[in-house]
């Protein structure tokens, strides 16, 4: 479809042809010292995918251990480390780099800029984030954990006080955890500031805020939310380190400190963090669904308002993670209400995506397959979220496998699914080659089946009273069969991810040449060459509507006539 592309005037690639093939060392050097938003974006993505695989291996080990009762595949100490590392890795070393991978690559292209606002800080943020991840994993070699027997952190990714106090967690494992999160937090803040500055200051002529692609809108809101939420997390980590080494008593219950203070600090970060992680999934859906349905997004202003609304409300719901800690009835009631309110803007988003598909001509290519599954799974996850917001029911469900199922429905069913959608969608832009669609379909269907076998079943394990974080369970509880099913689903997902990894690497070399605009899409990134030149656009583009390429392709019926 490359011949149908209509590049914006002046957006042609004027890069002179390369004079010589660069050596491996030169290539490596160019990546290490780069301040180019596209290369940094790709490095964020590679970091995220690498840690996704690492965290995935940890998850598979956890599932093998739990497949049958009284299993001895992992010792309790190793099991506790693995689920702590799995959670921490997936949230901080996969989820957050994914945001900035997509944002770094796409936001400047979508707003018609030549780079991020602060390219050097961009590089700094990436390397600091990566260093934080390596620091966390160095704990496997450098820390010694509970009872001097081990290394990596084993206090869960919530790290509730006072288990993290030196009395209960001697050694340095917990220090690695706290310091690694402080370090990645610095990288995250830098990257978030950069996205905000880019969106606010670097938009091309004609791109008003209300003409920005929804993807960019969501990344803006997401970065703002990160600025607000990373701060209390970092503050809490600093207090924890003070407690452990400078004789502070913030969380030291033996000396009158408060375990509750940690919970509040952690969850005022931790709950908005869930939205922070899911916003990129919304962002990708808001690009892929219109393009593959061949229709403009339905209710653009409502979508923007819903995104901002979710961000605001999400800052007031944190204590729904604390219904069982013994808050007053009035506090519990308040957080029930605020939590249920999130459902309203979330519902609006789902309905708008559905309305976008309604009346369209939906092309079920691989990105759209993932997005359709996302819609279904996000709907289900939202509804189990409503169930959990019902505080008395949460007294039963909290910390059971039902909760694990619920948030994996978001983290995998929404975020990972749409990450795959985004990769299949933008891989041609970033590399100039298409990913293999047949392998992509294998990947999709296997992953979908594996996902549902695992996480649908997990809800029922929770109903049957199985709590999270247990390394084994007695045979007479009757949890064995369902757990075996859950584990089998996990392995199917693992195979699907391997197919994806193979597809990713092989397409890099043998993929079909993509052209500038393989999906016949409408946002600015598709107007430049694939991969885009260093400067993105030779001359600054000018836009008159939310879909500049639609206007070019359909001069008889342009968007700007209809947009308010």
């Amino acid at each position, binding site marked *: 479809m490359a011949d149908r592309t209509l590049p914006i005037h002046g957006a042609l690639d004027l890069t002179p042809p390369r004079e010589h093939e660069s050596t491996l060392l030169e290539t490596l050097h160019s990546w290490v010292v780069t301040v180019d938003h596209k290369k940094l974006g790709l490095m964020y993505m590679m970091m995220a995918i690498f840690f996704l695989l690492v965290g995935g291996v940890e998850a598979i080990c956890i599932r093998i251990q739990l497949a049958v009762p009284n299993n001895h595949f992992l010792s309790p100490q190793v099991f506790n480390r693995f689920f702590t590392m799995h959670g921490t890795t997936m949230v901080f070393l996969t989820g957050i780099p994914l945001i900035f991978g997509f944002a770094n690559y796409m936001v400047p292209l979508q707003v018609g800029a030549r780079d991020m606002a602060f390219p050097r800080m961009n590089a700094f943020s990436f390397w600091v984030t990566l260093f934080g991840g390596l620091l966390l994993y160095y704990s496997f070699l450098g820390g010694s954990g509970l009872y001097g027997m081990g290394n990596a952190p084993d206090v869960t990714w919530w790290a509730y006080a006072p*288990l993290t106090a030196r009395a209960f967690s001697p050694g340095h494992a917990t220090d690695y955890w706290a310091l690694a999160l402080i370090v990645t937090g610095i990288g995250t803040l830098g990257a978030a500031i950069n996205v905000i500055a880019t969106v606010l200051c670097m938009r091309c002529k004609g791109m008003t805020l209300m003409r920005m692609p929804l993807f960019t809108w969501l990344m803006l809101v997401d970065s703002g939310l990160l600025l607000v939420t990373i701060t209390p997390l970092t503050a809490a980590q600093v207090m924890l380190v003070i407690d452990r080494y400078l004789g502070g008593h913030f969380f030291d219950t033996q000396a009158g400190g408060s375990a509750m203070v940690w919970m509040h600090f952690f969850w005022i970060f931790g709950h908005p963090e869930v939205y922070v992680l899911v916003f990129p999934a919304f962002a990708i859906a808001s690009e892929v669904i219109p393009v593959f349905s061949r229709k403009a997004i339905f209710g653009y202003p409502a979508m923007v308002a819903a995104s901002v609304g979710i961000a605001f409300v999400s800052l007031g719901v944190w204590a729904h993670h604390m219904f069982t800690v013994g808050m007053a009835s009035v506090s519990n009631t308040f957080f*029930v209400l605020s939590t249920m309110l999130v459902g309203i803007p979330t519902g609006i988003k789902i309905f708008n995506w559905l309305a976008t598909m309604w009346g369209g001509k939906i092309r079920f290519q691989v990105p759209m397959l993932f997005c359709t599954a996302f819609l279904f799974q996000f709907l289900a996850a939202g509804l189990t979220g409503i169930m959990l917001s019902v505080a008395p*029911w949460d007294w039963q469900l909290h910390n059971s496998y039902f909760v694990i199922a619920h948030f994996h429905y978001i983290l995998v069913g929404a975020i990972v699914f749409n990450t795959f959608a985004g990769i299949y969608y933008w891989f041609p832009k970033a590399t100039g080659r298409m990913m293999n669609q047949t392998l992509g379909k294998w990947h999709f269907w296997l992953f979908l089946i594996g996902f549902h076998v695992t996480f649908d079943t997990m809800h029922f394990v929770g109903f049957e009273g199985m709590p999270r974080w247990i390394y084994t369970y007695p045979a007479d509880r009757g949890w064995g069969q369902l757990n075996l099913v859950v584990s089998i689903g996990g392995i199917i997902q693992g195979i699907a991810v391997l197919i994806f990894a193979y597809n990713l690497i092989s397409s890099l070399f043998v993929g079909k040449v993509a052209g500038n605009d393989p999906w016949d899409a409408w946002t600015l990134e598709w107007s430049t060459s694939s991969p885009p030149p260093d400067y993105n656009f030779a001359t600054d583009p000018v836009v008159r509507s939310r879909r500049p390429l639609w206007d070019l392709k359909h001069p008889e019926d342009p968007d700007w006539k209809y947009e308010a």
Partner: protein
Amino acid sequence: MLRHWFRQPRTSTLAALLLALCPALAFAAGPQATPSIFAPASTPAAEIRSLSYFVLEITGTIFVVVGGLLAYVVVRFRARDTDDNREPAQIYGSTQVELAWTVIPVLIVVVLFLTTARMIFAIQEAPKPQSALSVTVVGHQFWWEYRYPDLGIVAANELHVPLSSTQDPKPTFMKLLSADVDHSYWVPQLSGKIDLIPNHPNELWIDPLQPGLYLGQCAQFCGVQHANMLLRVYVDTPEKFAAWVQNQQQPGVQDPAVAQGRRTFETQACMNCHAVRGTAATGRFGPDLTHLMSRDTIASGAVPNTSDNLRQWIKNPDSLKPGSLMPAMHLSDTQLDQITAYLETLK
């Protein structure tokens, strides 16, 4: 009308469908090996179940309607080979439609919120009747201490409470404390869970309506052996409970036949952590052993309380519960036999 929803437990079609998928989630009044939240045997758990059915009906309806719409859209509006290549009509939005799908969810939230709020207050603010039994639960890494302040009893790991009934309510009100880190008390058939947090006393009440043994376990990660911090709640008929109380109030049995074992127990480090009432052993770090033999299990429910297990547990606790805080004392075989024999007299 809302009151009606949880006045009488309802069996809804949706929940039935859900249960059909999962045979172990049967409706049972008595204790079960699988501690399902849908098999309540006590008022708080039963009220939560009826509330959960109500919520399931609403969320299930939304799921079917919106999921159905999605399925319809996917089938109806897919691109077909026979299509012309023209783009479909572009529709940018509709204020009326947006309003509709904002207002309807608001109404649903109002209903769900009011129902939930009422239930929170009903369970959390339930008055404590005169007839209630008071128990103080103290969470330790990795076992449970039970103190009955009105009865002068200290027990461990196996909670005994009297049977309650609608005619003659005899609920148990627990005060929950922690000696070290956070724990959580969860016996799904009896009630929801509540955390045990240092410096933050909590309360929980149950009124079990069927006798028997109810299982549960710690639900907040508390360290290496979180998984084997198991909960066993014995709901006894009034006569059985009275007999149990009567026995627990006695000091430890002093059998001269095992005097040597008792001496070993008191001269080794055992008594630093364990108490046997009526003797010099008054330790508080580990479970009170005054009536050890009245318990079915040791190591907080990890293994049955048999002679072999007891001996193995004293010899090397890590072999039964790796990471448990009880140290292996490196006793000789003779000492092990003596101490085991002594402990076995503590009925």
